[in-house]
């Protein structure tokens, strides 16, 4: 049987935000790029909330707003601390977000990724779908020189392989470049798309035109597990989901769909999705182990970007922008090396990590490196505090003939009883130290 004889400048594994950013950057610069995607089409396997952060994409495709499939630009952010019957919220809504070039958008990934991939093709990249990379091909010295796929026709060779295969990182794992994911470092999120007519979405969330609202929620909705819930408005639907750390889920035995069901039935959420029709149900893993869970991200003939490199900022719910930026920087590094006629050795590809360090990506990853462990070891932060806040708010707001001084002392007493002064101070210190 015939085999592929040619050699590519770069092979990109995966057609998500990281892979597309890398492939586009390199193809646009004139490199011979081959991108391999296991899904039926780019985006068919990809899952996200999903929020698109304009800045990261603007640096790759400045005029993306002209034809990218965008749902709504975000003008209002709600952060809800929830107990079983209430939520204590912080809402921020600003007319400033109704700007000419909005900063954040809700998107539907299956559509967005297909658009992004069409840009890769337009730039001259070759994209092959339904083709799974099974492992890396190495030379006798252990340098990566190409990939093997699940199709006949032998190995595909390239000067460098960009691994953007997603959270599971199976290619890198099978090739011995990184370890298996640890249940402590990965969250399992489930999401449903609920169809609602456009005017219903707009009246329920007080919206006009393409403006949108996002809700991030935490508290007893995760049943004592480390995790968060969310609800995002799309044009004619809302995306609603919830995710928790896998090891917590394993320990509690709570089924993800049950968790989502009870989130949907919460009195603060149910009216927002009432009368809707479920369009799809998806589940995905999110690498939330932070900086300390990151694998090695470059070597002889290879770099890693996006979820596969564990680049997710769980605190700010950012991931796709880190993916796109890491993909772009990987691509730019390779283009830079090619132009200088330098080989893609580990020493030279260290430039990729340096560029990541200089960008917000690794700065943010470093800043929040202690947060995953903090949340994991201090469940009260996600369980007790939302309940306490709800209790305080109720005592404060309910008019029942009690004197205000009595109410205040009732609040202090309940807080001390629930956590104790020492506990409160310790939590505050722990949090401040992890945040710094």
């Amino acid at each position, binding site marked *: *049987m*015939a*085999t*592929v004889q040619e050699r590519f400048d770069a092979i990109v594994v995966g057609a998500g935000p990281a892979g597309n950013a890398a492939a586009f950057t390199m193809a646009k610069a004139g490199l011979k790029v*081959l991108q391999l995607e296991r899904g*039926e*089409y780019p985006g*068919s396997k990809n899952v996200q909330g999903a929020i698109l952060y304009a800045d990261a994409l603007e640096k790759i495709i400045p005029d993306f707003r002209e034809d990218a*499939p965008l749902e709504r630009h975000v003008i209002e952010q709600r952060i809800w601390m929830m107990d079983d019957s209430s939520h204590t919220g912080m809402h921020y809504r600003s007319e400033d977000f109704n700007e000419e070039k909005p900063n954040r958008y809700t998107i*539907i990934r*299956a*559509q967005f990724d*297909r658009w992004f991939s069409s840009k890769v093709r337009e730039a001259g990249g*070759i*994209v*092959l779908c339904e*083709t799974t990379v099974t492992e890396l091909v190495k030379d006798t010295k252990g340098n990566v020189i190409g990939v093997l*796929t699940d*199709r*006949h*026709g*032998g190995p*595909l060779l390239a000067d460098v392989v960009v691994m953007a295969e997603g959270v599971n990182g199976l290619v890198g794992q099978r090739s011995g470049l990184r370890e298996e994911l640890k249940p402590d470092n990965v969250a399992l999120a489930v999401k449903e798309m609920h*169809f609602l*007519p456009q005017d219903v979405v707009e009246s329920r969330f007080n919206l006009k035109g393409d403006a949108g609202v996002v809700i991030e929620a935490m508290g007893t909705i995760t049943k004592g597990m480390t995790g968060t819930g969310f609800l995002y408005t799309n044009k004619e639907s809302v995306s609603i989901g919830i995710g928790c750390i896998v090891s917590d889920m394993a320990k509690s035995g709570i089924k993800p769909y049950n968790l989502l069901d009870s989130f949907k039935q919460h009195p603060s959420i149910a009216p927002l999705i009432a009368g809707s*029709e479920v*369009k799809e149900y998806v589940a995905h893993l999110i690498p939330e182990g932070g900086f300390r869970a990151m694998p090695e991200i470059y070597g002889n003939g290879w770099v890693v970007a996006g979820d596969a490199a564990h680049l997710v900022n769980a605190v700010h719910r950012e991931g796709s922008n880190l993916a796109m930026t890491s993909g772009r920087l990987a691509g730019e590094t390779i283009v830079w090396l090619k132009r200088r006629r330098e080989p893609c050795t580990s020493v030279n590809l260290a430039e990729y990590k340096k560029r990541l360090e200089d960008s917000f990506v690794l700065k943010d990853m470093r800043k929040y490196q202690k947060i995953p462990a903090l949340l994991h070891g201090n469940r009260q932060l996600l369980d007790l505090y939302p309940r306490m806040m709800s209790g305080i708010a109720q005592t404060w707001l309910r008019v029942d003939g009690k004197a205000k001084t009595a109410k205040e002392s009732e609040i202090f007493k309940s807080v001390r009883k629930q956590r104790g002064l020492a506990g409160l101070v310790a939590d505050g210190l722990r949090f401040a130290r992890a945040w710094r």
Partner: protein
Amino acid sequence: MHIVVCIKQVPDSAQIRVHPVTNTIMRQGVPTIINPYDLFALEEALRLRDRLGGTVTVLTMGPPMAEDSLRKALGIGADRGVLLTDRFFAGSDTLATSYALSQAILKIGETWGVPEVVFTGKQTIDGDTAQVGPGIARRLGLQQLTYVSGISEVDLAGKSITVSRRAEGGVQELKTALPALITMLEGSNEVRRGSIVDVLRGARAELVTWNAQAAGITEMGNCGLRGSPTVVKRVFAPKARATKAVPIETRERDAETIAEDIIAQLYATQPALEAELLRTAAGY
């Protein structure tokens, strides 16, 4: 031997939703696929080619984005892709489609040799008419073999072909003269997975793109909406029926009591039913 396979790019019906408010089909964002029945035709064509030598030309009519389906077909192993695209073809029914395709097949014949066999799928999953294949056969004067489940023999020298055809109550073994048109039944073979060489070639191949003029079509009145006598009167989503079963408990196990209890339950859930039945019965 030269084989032409007609394929159609269709929306993936598994992913189509009906708009709950307007009741229209929501096409936006629905991925497209090669009509699944056509894949069995393509695979059978490739097997004939592999066995007897020759080339397989894949032909599709559709908007420019139908190019994806041709590249996919090349990735499975076809040799050549022809895209027939022109705004004059918009709105074609099966009559106009079979006209345009048959003209393009004539042009393909002039350009790369007259095909011995033309394949189509049994039908498409979006139109479901199964008319285009027979229409092409009629227009080109080809022997027509529909619902074929297997090809037993091809005699190129003697210009004959023997196939199995699924018919009501059994399988027919049919022999006829070449050239012939075959509409292929689903499940009759297993579609191969192209090698990495094939998919690379498919991704980069120069496709042949013809508009009406390039395909040698002169009778524009036979094309598109003008050439389509079929009128779509209304598209609607059938009402969802409640299919939940309700267990009915009966007092005794004898037929009469069971019937009484069932009827009582029916009347209980549909109060208007008893009066209506009585009114109808009064006429007798």
